[in-house]
């Protein structure tokens, strides 16, 4: 009687998984690194790893449909003559015209305005569409200075000096030639069809002492009217926040690695920067150590998806949050309605991230005149407003459950964490324990 070895189940490597193998093959075939849009896709500790405790015998809740729970936020109260007041603590992050289509930018302005919040320009200057349709518009001051001019600076409602962004702290940008239409080229003072590189450093200042002088210049040009934000990627949130405050910022924006980009190397997006959750407490501590918490406002961005995320960011000490990727999804980005076309591009709805190629079936991350017709700015703006309304209601629901009559009254004490990692990053106890990793004890 012969013995047959039973066949073993084919086993794939956890290290060399299917995605890794495909990336090695792609690199070998093309000789170039992968560029894509969006933020980090790897799993990192996030707001899902936190829970609210809610009310109990020692904390009484507020009545959901009768007792008021405020959501307004004032930004820029430190130095600006004209700080801005938003109805909700959720703003729209900077995204460029060029990366996004004109109708998409208009829709962002419309949606933000309907919701009583602000939207932000991007690395391509200010367009008439977004200025005209945005009651409150934040004008980004970027290393490239594409489209920068004093007229737009003065008709902005706030100025955001961009030092970095979460998807690529320390990185510049690239807008590939296929998205450089005549209009984009003119706004950026570059020939049509070439790849446009955006510098990673500002051309005329280096370091925190220079930044202070640069902020002074911007204030002088705008007669000290505009709130000045400083946006940093989630690299060294404690020191970056402290230095931004020292440089005179009215508002600090901290963007974690889940924050999106229009186009950056995959290796950069996935391997540089810290998760949003890890950035908030250090930034808040910097403000507290300087006696500036709530005096200099903190905006947190990177992977904010719903009202629970908003409430958790605020509970950890932020004054507001900012959304980019989620706003694009609300407009229609990655919608299954276009699945057939995503398939033709080698993607699927929900995974399409080749935003730099300008072929977006949803008409959002493109300059193709035919594709961009798919975005109805009025309808898309309404969708964004609906989404912002839901997020706000959700955050209020949680705040009331925690007994807070304003979302800013949420606090770390209202939270616990589901994992040791999240507990350490957020500085809140592991659920069921009083243990905050990193703060003594075991």
């Amino acid at each position, binding site marked *: 009687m012969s013995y047959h070895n039973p066949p073993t189940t084919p086993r794939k490597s956890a290290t060399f998984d299917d995605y890794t193998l495909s990336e090695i093959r792609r690199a070998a075939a093309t000789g170039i690194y992968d560029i894509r849009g969006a933020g980090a896709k790897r799993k990192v500790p996030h707001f899902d790893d936190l829970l609210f405790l809610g009310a109990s015998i020692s904390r009484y809740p507020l009545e959901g449909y009768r007792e008021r729970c405020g959501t307004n936020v004032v930004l820029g109260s430190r130095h600006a003559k004209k700080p801005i007041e938003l109805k909700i603590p959720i703003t729209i992050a900077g995204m460029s015209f060029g990366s996004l289509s004109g109708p998409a930018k208009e829709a962002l302005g419309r949606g933000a305005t309907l919701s009583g919040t602000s939207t932000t320009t991007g690395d391509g200057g200010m367009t008439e569409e977004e200025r005209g349709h945005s009651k409150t518009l934040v004008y980004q001051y970027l290393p490239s*200075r594409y489209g920068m001019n004093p007229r737009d600076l003065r008709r902005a409602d706030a100025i955001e000096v961009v030092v970095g962004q979460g998807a690529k702290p320390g990185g510049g940008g690239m807008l590939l030639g296929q998205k450089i239409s005549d209009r984009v080229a003119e706004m950026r003072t*570059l020939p049509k069809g070439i790849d446009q590189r955006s510098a990673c450093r500002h051309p005329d200042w280096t370091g925190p002492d220079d930044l202070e002088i640069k902020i*002074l210049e911007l204030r002088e040009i705008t007669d000290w009217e505009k709130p000045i934000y400083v946006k940093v990627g989630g690299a060294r949130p404690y020191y970056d926040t402290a230095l931004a405050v020292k440089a005179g910022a009215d508002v600090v924006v901290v963007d974690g690695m889940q924050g999106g980009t229009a186009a950056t190397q995959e290796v950069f997006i996935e391997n540089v920067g810290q998760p949003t959750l890890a950035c908030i407490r250090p930034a808040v501590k910097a403000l507290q150590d300087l006696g500036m918490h709530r005096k200099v406002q903190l905006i947190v961005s990177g992977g904010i998806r719903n009202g629970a995320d908003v409430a958790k960011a605020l509970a950890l000490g932020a004054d507001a949050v900012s959304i980019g990727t989620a706003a694009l999804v609300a407009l229609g980005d990655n919608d299954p309605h276009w699945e057939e076309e995503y398939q033709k591009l080698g993607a699927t709805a929900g995974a399409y991230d080749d935003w730099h190629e300008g072929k977006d079936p949803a008409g959002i991350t493109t300059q193709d005149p035919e594709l961009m017709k798919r975005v109805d700015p009025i309808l898309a703006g309404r969708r964004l407003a609906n989404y912002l309304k839901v997020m706000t209601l959700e955050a209020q629901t949680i705040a009331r459950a925690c007994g807070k009559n304003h979302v800013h009254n949420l606090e770390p004490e209202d939270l616990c964490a589901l994992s040791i990692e999240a507990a350490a990053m957020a500085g809140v106890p592991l659920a069921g324990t009083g243990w905050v990793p990193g703060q003594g004890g075991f």
Partner: protein
Amino acid sequence: MNISNVAAAPAREMEFARHVFDLAEQSLRELNQALHGLARGSNETSWEVLNPKGSHSVAVGVDQPVAVDVRGSVGYYCGGMNAGGTITVHGSAGPGVGENMMSGSIVVKGDASQYAGATGRGGLLVIEGNASSRCGISMKGIDIVVRGNIGHMSAFMAQSGNLVVLGDAGDALGDSIYEARLFVRGKVKSLGADCIKKEMRPEHIALLQDLLDRAGIRDAKPEEFTRYGSARKLYNFNIDNADAY
């Protein structure tokens, strides 16, 4: 406006009285506010700033056709985002003089520090002394004329406009340059990525003569200069050019 600071002037020029602003007595904020507060078509077109003593952001955001004479040296960003003003620094200028200038002119009688004319979109910046590193970085249409030498990495990512240098240029001139034109009379220590020497055709001679005339330079001839510009090999990413970066 502090009327007491209106200097004595000949009777025939009284309607264009010169406003003297002493930064030892008045604040930078008052100066810039006064310049920004001018009505369109105002006849308050002549300004003199005393005792700048290295102040930053002197006469930034000027948006009227006024003449501002700064008597002394200034710090960072003098004349930043100038739109139509004629600003003269009777001294030296710190980093970023004339940054993002839109139109008008700025003349620096002495030397200029780093980033002179950075991202400038229009107008004329004349530096009668030397300019430090990164002169004309990311320039977007401005014309810059430097009588002396310029430092390293000048015209980095220069997109548009003209940079004229009567002296020498430092290392990596015009690195990653786009469509700006560079004219250097002296030696260039080294050229940056994608920046090459180019032929001086008649249209460039005419252009350079005009720039020299506008800068008030009469002791240099266009034929003495060499033109540099983009090889345009890095305009679209090609992996075979990766070593150039």
